[in-house]
């Protein structure tokens, strides 16, 4: 019987059925960071348990690291305490830690793929909702809570109910100036922020076939913003080419065996799905959010919704609440909205290709006066790659501060925060109230090139016009 990738990986990793009907699922790869792991290690100690498979957990530090301070102790003693705790836990339990001194530190969802730890046909868990990113490689990757981090540390498994699978096919060529970020914003707007509850999303179609791994990661990353805990793309030659030669990828004689094994995980022709959605790439436009969840998005040429256009009472209340928070006028064009801050980075769009694409257009241009613009590479390796290509210079000359690797202003657990009700054009993934560190701060999500356009104009702008984009 034909199976989809989710079913194959699930079956391969099923240990047994539990009394409550859930499955004890083997988690092959466990990633941890400083925010959600210390409490789990605490629980482990309280129960007198050990880490069952220490070589299958990998750690990095990302959320709290300052991006402009390199010397410890950090100015924020709480941040330093979290750093120390992670270091201590990794040392005590024999876990590999990509600390800053290794040169491999970065946002956990960038480090895993970069090191070749993220592989097709595997299960991955991390105490972080954007773990779905790793699904870009044909892995089943779950964001989990701290108690489950404890479970995975103690047993390398967790208790889970099986998910349904929705195939989302995007076909055709994206119009110029339209990026992977726009694809996922489009999907979330279309299916809703909780449309994916209970589902794994399988992204497919010719658009995805043509995507690079980094583009696939951008889409899978935001699956959770559409309510889907898992999102994946079937592995193909693009996947294998990306992995070849990476530190943790299979070597020499093992490579060919691994590739043929990986291929076998791809969904079979005729595989069953619980739902199928088809989208035309040509229908997708550069997108921006206007509200306080990632589903409240529009294309750059549309107007901000007004409560009168609401489709239901709920929708209406949602629009009213969002507009009040965002301080945006109902029915007006979103284009031309003044911004204060431009943020390039995050696990959604903090990779080499993101900075390359921005540099291509921003070279020779200047960030508008009065705009704070920061560019934060997702990992130390991304930073180095960019610096080798001189992208940091191009960005700095344009007026972006070039920072060190971390989550930074994506959720502002480090010193990079909005002030007051500043409005930020951001390449990150969440526009919740207060997300970027100020309780009244405002976020508009968009692709990195759109962030660059907003930075140059000092207002939300159509990157296709600002940069005369005619082809991708």
């Amino acid at each position, binding site marked *: 019987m034909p199976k989809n990738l989710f079913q194959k990986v699930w079956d391969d990793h099923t240990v047994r059925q*539990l009394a409550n009907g859930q499955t*004890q699922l083997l988690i092959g790869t466990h990633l941890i960071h400083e925010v959600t792991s210390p409490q789990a290690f605490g629980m482990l100690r309280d129960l007198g348990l050990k880490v069952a498979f220490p070589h299958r957990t990998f750690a990095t530090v990302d959320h709290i690291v300052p991006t402009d301070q390199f010397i410890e102790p950090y100015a*924020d003693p709480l941040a330093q305490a979290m750093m120390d705790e992670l270091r201590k836990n990794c040392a005590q339990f024999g876990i590999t830690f990509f600390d800053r001194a290794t040169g491999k530190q970065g946002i956990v969802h960038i480090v895993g793929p970069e090191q070749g730890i993220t592989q097709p046909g595997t299960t991955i868990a991390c105490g972080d909702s954007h773990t779905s990113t790793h699904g870009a490689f044909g892995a089943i990757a779950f964001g989990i809570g*701290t*108690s489950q981090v404890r479970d995975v540390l103690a047993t390398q498994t967790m208790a889970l109910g099986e998910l349904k699978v929705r195939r989302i096919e995007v076909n055709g060529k994206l119009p110029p100036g339209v990026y992977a970020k726009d694809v996922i914003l489009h999907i979330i707007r279309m299916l809703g922020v909780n449309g994916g509850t209970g589902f794994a999303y399988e992204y497919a179609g010719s658009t995805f076939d043509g995507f690079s791994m980094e583009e696939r990661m951008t889409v899978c990353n935001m699956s959770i913003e559409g309510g889907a805990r898992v999102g994946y793309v079937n592995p193909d030659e693009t996947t294998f080419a990306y992995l070849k030669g990476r530190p943790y990828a299979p070597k020499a004689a093992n490579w060919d065996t691994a590739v043929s094994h990986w291929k076998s995980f791809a969904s079979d022709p005729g595989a069953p799905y619980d739902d199928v959605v088809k989208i035309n790439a040509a229908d997708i436009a550069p997108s921006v959010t206007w509200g306080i969840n990632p589903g409240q998005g529009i294309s750059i040429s549309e107007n901000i919704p007004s409560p009168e256009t609401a489709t239901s009472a709920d929708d209406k209340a949602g629009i009213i609440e969002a507009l009040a928070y965002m301080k945006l006028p109902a029915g007006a064009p979103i284009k031309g909205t003044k911004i204060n801050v431009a943020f390039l980075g995050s696990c959604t769009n903090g990779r080499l290709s993101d900075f390359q694409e921005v540099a291509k257009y921003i070279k020779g241009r200047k960030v508008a006066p009065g705009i704070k613009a920061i560019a934060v590479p997702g990992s130390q390796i991304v930073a180095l790659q960019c610096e080798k290509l001189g992208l940091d210079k191009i960005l700095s000359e344009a007026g972006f501060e070039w920072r060190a690797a971390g989550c930074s202003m994506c959720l502002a657990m480090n010193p990079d925060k909005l002030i007051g009700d500043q409005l930020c054009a951001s390449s990150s993934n969440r526009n919740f*109230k207060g997300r970027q*560190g100020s309780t009244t701060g405002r976020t508009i999500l968009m692709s990195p090139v759109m962030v660059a356009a907003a930075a140059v104009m000092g207002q939300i702008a159509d990157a296709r016009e600002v940069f005369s984009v005619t082809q991708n």
Partner: protein
Amino acid sequence: MALAKITSVFGRAVNVPGNDIDTDRIIPARFMKCVTFDGLGEFLFYDVRKQLDGTEKSHPLNEPRFKGATILLSGANFGCGSSREHAPQAIAKYGFKAVIAENFAEIFFGNSTTLGMPCVTASREDIAKISAFTEADPQGEVAIDLVKLEVRFGGQTVKIAQRESARNALVNGRWDAIGELIDGLPAVKITAGKLPYLAA
């Protein structure tokens, strides 16, 4: 590990209305700089409960008449956003024992169940009825019955629902899977041995 069998939750209720109440709202990220969950309760809903200067805003949880409530009522898609367990932990540490909402974000639901804090769903109309009851009588008792799947309050009864695997785990004292997962370790080693990437 013997866990309590959670078949019912009794207590006073408080309604925090709204849809899509996300985990950043439940516990703002800046309060996640901690290495234990102790003390998270006081930061629950912080930014909607407190002004910048720390004085209180108008919010149901700030009303003296609702102090000591142990059942939280809310709207649709409660707990959306992050996987952070800080959110259900903050709710539990504040003193809540259960949440009734129209529906829940997936990860939040699972995290809460693992803490032994039942999340049950009810229709909007029924939640409004419970809310009206507590408005009229903040001291009135609300009882969530996970066996009969109903909520009883002031002589009224409304239906609730809960995913069967979670309900089963709660009422049978298996809501925290760790004991069972550890029992499975020999089988885990066998499964791991069959997977090439784990054999190395």
